[in-house]
């Protein structure tokens, strides 16, 4: 199962070509990028939360995340425009493939009571988003070094035209979807 990038070329693309009868290889859906986002609204009270989130994402992805800022002020949330309220990181190329490998083959099986990931995370245009409850499922994160449990959203952007194509692409890459 590992060496996911190579497997995409040698196994996944031919399988997709056959199933959806594309006229050219370039029509076969590809994984374009993976975006990891941690929304840290509690950073408003405690700036240190952001440092923890940055450290976590950095260790998981091997890439330094970007601080996201409030787009507009919302008084009810005591939010002012421009305050730092989250971190995100965009993965492409080699790091993206490595992350996908670690996610599907190590991190997801480590989720408590794992029974497959839901197929309803598709957005209608072939991109898939998955929410995680705790960062501990990634083996890089050590239990005694974290400041708090925090989840994240993982979005996999593909060039698939619809959900069926995207679903099949991820399934062939080894994504453990729930079987009903």
């Amino acid at each position, binding site marked *: *199962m*590992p*060496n996911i990038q190579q497997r995409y070329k040698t196994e996944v693309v031919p399988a997709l070509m056959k199933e959806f009868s594309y006229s050219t290889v370039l029509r076969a859906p590809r994984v374009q990028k993976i975006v990891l986002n941690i929304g840290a609204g509690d950073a408003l009270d405690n700036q240190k939360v952001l440092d923890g989130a940055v450290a976590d994402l*950095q*260790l*998981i*992805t*091997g*890439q*330094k995340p970007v601080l996201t800022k409030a787009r507009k002020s919302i008084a009810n949330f005591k939010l002012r425009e421009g305050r730092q309220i989250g971190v995100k990181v965009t993965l492409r190329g*080699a*790091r993206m*493939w*490595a992350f996908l*490998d*670690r996610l*599907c*083959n*190590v991190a997801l*099986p*480590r989720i408590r*009571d*794992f*029974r*497959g990931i839901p197929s309803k995370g598709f957005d209608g245009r072939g991109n898939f988003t998955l929410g995680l409850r705790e960062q501990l499922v990634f*083996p*890089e994160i050590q239990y005694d070094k974290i400041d708090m449990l925090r989840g994240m959203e993982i979005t996999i952007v593909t060039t698939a035209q619809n959900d069926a194509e995207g679903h099949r692409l991820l399934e062939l890459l*080894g994504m*453990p979807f729930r079987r009903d």
Partner: protein
Amino acid sequence: MREGIHPKWYPEAKVACACGNTWTVGAAVPEIRTDVCYNCHPFFTGEQRIVDTEGQVDRFIKRLEKRQETVIPTSKKAKRRKEKQAIVELVDETAEAEA
């Protein structure tokens, strides 16, 4: 990617699972150890056993055994409860007769 701000990258980090399976993957740590991987997790292999990381299954079985041991010799409380139930039944019947 900008130079100098990202953590060290190990393109050939080793992953070792408790089931004996190993492979290499790019990661920010040189070595990854894990209890379960895609190779041995019951969901991936066809759900043939229950994952028991915290001994919950053992604890449940033990509790079940304990309960069976204690239940068989009926306690005073259980007897009293039975008598009470009998009274309730009687009352029910008379109530029906009145109605």
